[in-house]
C-alpha cells in the first residue's frame, strides 16, 4: 500500500521536475550578467534622481549605453561611476556635482504674516487654496512637503526662519524636492568648488515696490547687481535677477550691492570688513 503512494508521488515529482527543466530551458530570458554586477555597486537608494526607474533601471541603461557620458548616479557620484566604468570597460563621463538650492529667503522677520492658515499643513493643498500667509504669493509656505519628499534627510525646516535648509554633504541632487515644491522654489544648482555658490534667493515676480512691501529680502529687480557683475552673468527678467552659474566666477561683487540682501553666498569665508572712508569718518567722530 505504502509503495503505491511512494511510486505515484515520486512519479508526479519526476514528471514535474522534467517539465520545469524543459520550460526553464525553452523560455529562458537572457540577462546580461553585468547588469547585476553594476547594480551591486550602485547605492540601492532607488531615488530616481538619475532619471531611470530605480537602480536596476539605471544599471540596465549603463550596460546598454555606448558611452557613460550622459549617465550619472547623483547619490554615488564620481566614485560609483568609476566603479561602474571599471565593470563595463567604458570611460566614466565627467559630472558636475549639483545641489538643491532654495530660492526663498523670506524669513519670519523679513516677511510679516498678513493672514493665518489653519487648513491642512501641506504645501500642495495650501497652494491649491491660495497664495500663502504673507503678501508674497511666490514664497515658501514652510509646510515641509520637501522634507517629506527627501529620502536622504538632507532638507529640514529651520524653526526660526520657517524656511527649508539643505545640508550640503547629505544632498545628492536627486531632485525629489524640486518636483514636489508647488511654488517651484527649489532648483538644482552647480555645487561649485568647496560647495561655494552664489544665487538669488527669491522668486517674487511682482514689481519692486510690491515685492519690497511683502518681504524685506525680496529681489526688486533693481539691476544693481547686473551692472556690478564683470562677467555678464546676471540677467533680469520678470522683476527678478538670475545668476547664470556657468558664467558666474564667484567673484562676490554682486552680493554687497544688493539693497535687500537677496543674493546669498554659501560657504564662503567671512568677508574682511573693508575700511571705507565713511566708516573711517564715523570712527573719528566717535
Amino acid at each position, binding site marked *: 500500500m505504502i509503495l503505491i503512494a511512494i511510486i505515484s508521488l515520486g512519479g508526479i515529482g519526476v514528471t514535474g521536475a522534467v517539465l520545469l527543466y524543459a520550460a526553464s530551458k525553452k523560455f529562458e530570458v537572457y540577462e546580461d550578467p553585468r547588469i547585476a554586477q553594476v547594480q551591486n555597486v550602485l547605492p540601492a537608494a532607488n531615488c530616481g534622481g538619475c532619471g531611470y526607474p530605480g537602480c536596476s533601471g539605471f544599471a540596465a541603461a549603463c550596460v546598454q549605453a555606448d558611452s557613460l557620458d550622459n549617465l550619472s548616479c547623483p547619490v554615488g557620484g564620481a566614485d560609483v561611476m568609476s566603479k561602474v566604468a571599471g565593470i563595463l570597460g567604458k570611460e566614466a563621463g565627467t559630472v558636475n556635482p549639483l545641489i538643491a538650492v532654495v530660492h526663498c529667503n523670506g524669513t519670519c522677520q523679513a516677511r510679516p504674516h498678513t493672514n493665518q492658515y*489653519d487648513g491642512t499643513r501641506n504645501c*500642495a*493643498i495650501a497652494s*491649491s*487654496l*491660495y*497664495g500663502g500667509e504673507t503678501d508674497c*504669493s511666490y514664497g515658501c509656505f514652510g509646510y515641509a512637503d520637501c522634507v517629506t519628499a527627501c529620502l536622504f534627510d538632507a532638507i529640514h525646516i529651520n524653526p526660526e526662519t520657517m524656511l527649508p535648509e539643505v545640508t550640503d554633504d547629505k544632498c545628492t541632487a536627486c531632485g525629489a524636492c524640486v518636483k514636489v515644491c508647488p511654488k517651484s522654489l527649489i532648483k538644482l544648482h552647480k555645487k561649485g568648488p568647496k560647495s561655494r555658490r552664489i544665487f538669488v534667493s527669491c522668486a517674487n515676480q511682482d514689481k519692486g515696490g*510690491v515685492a519690497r512691501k511683502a518681504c524685506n529680502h525680496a529681489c526688486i529687480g533693481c539691476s544693481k547687481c547686473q551692472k556690478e557683475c564683470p562677467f555678464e552673468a546676471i540677467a533680469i527678467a520678470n522683476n527678478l535677477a538670475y545668476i547664470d552659474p556657468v558664467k558666474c566666477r564667484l567673484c562676490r561683487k554682486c552680493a554687497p550691492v544688493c539693497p535687500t540682501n537677496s543674493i546669498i553666498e554659501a560657504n564662503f569665508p567671512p568677508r574682511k570688513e573693508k575700511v571705507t572712508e565713511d566708516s573711517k569718518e564715523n570712527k573719528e567722530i566717535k
Partner: protein
Amino acid sequence: MLRTFRIGGIHPPESKLSAGKKINRADIPKQVIIPLAQHIGAPAQAVVKKGDAVKTGTLIGKAAGFVSANIHSSVSGKVTKIDQALDASGYKHPAVFIDVEGDEWEESIDRNGNLIKECLLPPKEIINKITEAGIVGMGGATFPTQVKLTPPPGNNKAELLIINAAECEPYLTSDHSLMMEKGEEITAGISILMKAVDVTRAVIGIENNKPDAIARFNSLVKGYAGIEVMPLKSRYPQGGEKQLIDAVVRRQVKSGSLPVSVGAVVQNTGTAFAVYEAVQKNKPLIERVVTVTGKNMSNPSNLLVRIGTPIRNLIDAAGGLPENTGKIIGGGPMMGKALISPDIPVAKGSSGILILSCEEAIHKPMYDCIRCAKCVNVCPMGLNPTLLMSATDFQDWELAEKNHIVDCIECGSCSYTCPANRVLLDYIRLGKGKVMGMIRARKS
C-alpha cells in the same frame, strides 16, 4: 412626495438669517477694483488705459477667446491703473482700478423700471446681446452664459430649460430675495432664455424651504406658456447642475458629458434676471445681489452691489465686523472659501459673504479614517471620497482617475459628514486638479 436627487446629499442647518429681508442698494464706493478674470476661461483683455474716463456700463475688458466674458465698468469715473489685485482666488490677477466720480450711465442703457414682457428678437440676436453684456452663471460657477446657450455640435437638442432656484447652500438668500422682488423680470428672463435655446418647456426648481417663493412663482407663471414651478425637497447640493437635472427630470448625466446630452439646459435665477436686463434694457452685468450674513452680524442683509466694491464696505453696511470674527468666507459655508483680506472686491460670482466667529471657524483635529463609509453614502456623485483622498495622498493619480476623481463637484458633503474630521475635499480638490492637468497634457 416631493422630489429630490437620488444619490447622497446632506441637510445641514439652513441658517437663512437674511431670508425675507428686502434688497438694499449698497452705496457706491470711492474706488472700485474690477478683476479682469471673473469667469471660468480666458481673462478678459483690458480695452481702457490709465486716465481714461468711463461711464457706468462702459466696456473695459473684452472677452479673449470663446470661453470668456466681457467686463464692464460698474461706476463712472477715471481709470487710475490696471494692475495686479488680490481676488477671491487668493492670488493676484490683473484688475482695473477706477476712481468714482458721480454716477453717469451709458446712454444706451434703459434705466426705466417698466416691465417689458415681449421679446421679438431672434435667438441669435438674444445670444449676441448676452455675449455683449458679459453674463456668466450667477450661481457661483461663473461659466460664460453664451457658451452654455450654444451647445457644441454633435450633442442632442435641448428639450427643456431648468431654472436653478434651489439655493441649497446654507445662509445664502440672494436668489431668494431676488425671486421675491424681481419675480416678473425673472419670469420674463426665463421666457427669453427659452427662446434662445429653442425649447417650449421650462421648469423652475425651488426648494420647499422657500414656500413664499413657490407661491409667488406659481401665480407669476400663469401668464406664460410652458413655464412650470417644481417644489423640491430641501437637500444639499440640490443646486448642483447634475443633481438638479436628476431631481427635476430623473435623468443622469454621464461622466464627462454635458447636461444637454440628456436634453437639459440649466440656468440660475440670477442669470435669468441678468439676461432680462441685458436683452430688454441693454444693461450689462455690473451689479448683483450679495447676501452678507453671519450669526454675530447685527444686521444680516441682502445688498444690491456694484461689481468691484470692496467687501469691507458691504460688511460695514450690514452692521460692521463683529469683534469675535474668525473668518470671512466668500460664498456659502459649504462651497465658499475663506478670504484673506477685506479689500477683495465683489465679482460676478460672489453670491454671499459669511462672517464666522472664532468658535465656528475652528478646524477640529483630524483623526484616522475609521472606514465608516459615511462619505461614500453622502457623495452626490456616487464617488468614494476616502479612496480618492488616499490616492491623492499617495500620489497614485492612475487610481484617482480610474475612480472618477474629475467628476467631483467639490460640494464638501464628505468633509462635512466625516466623524474623524478628515479634510477629504482639500485632498480631492488637489488630486482633481492634478488629474485634470494630466488628461489635458495627454490630449495635446
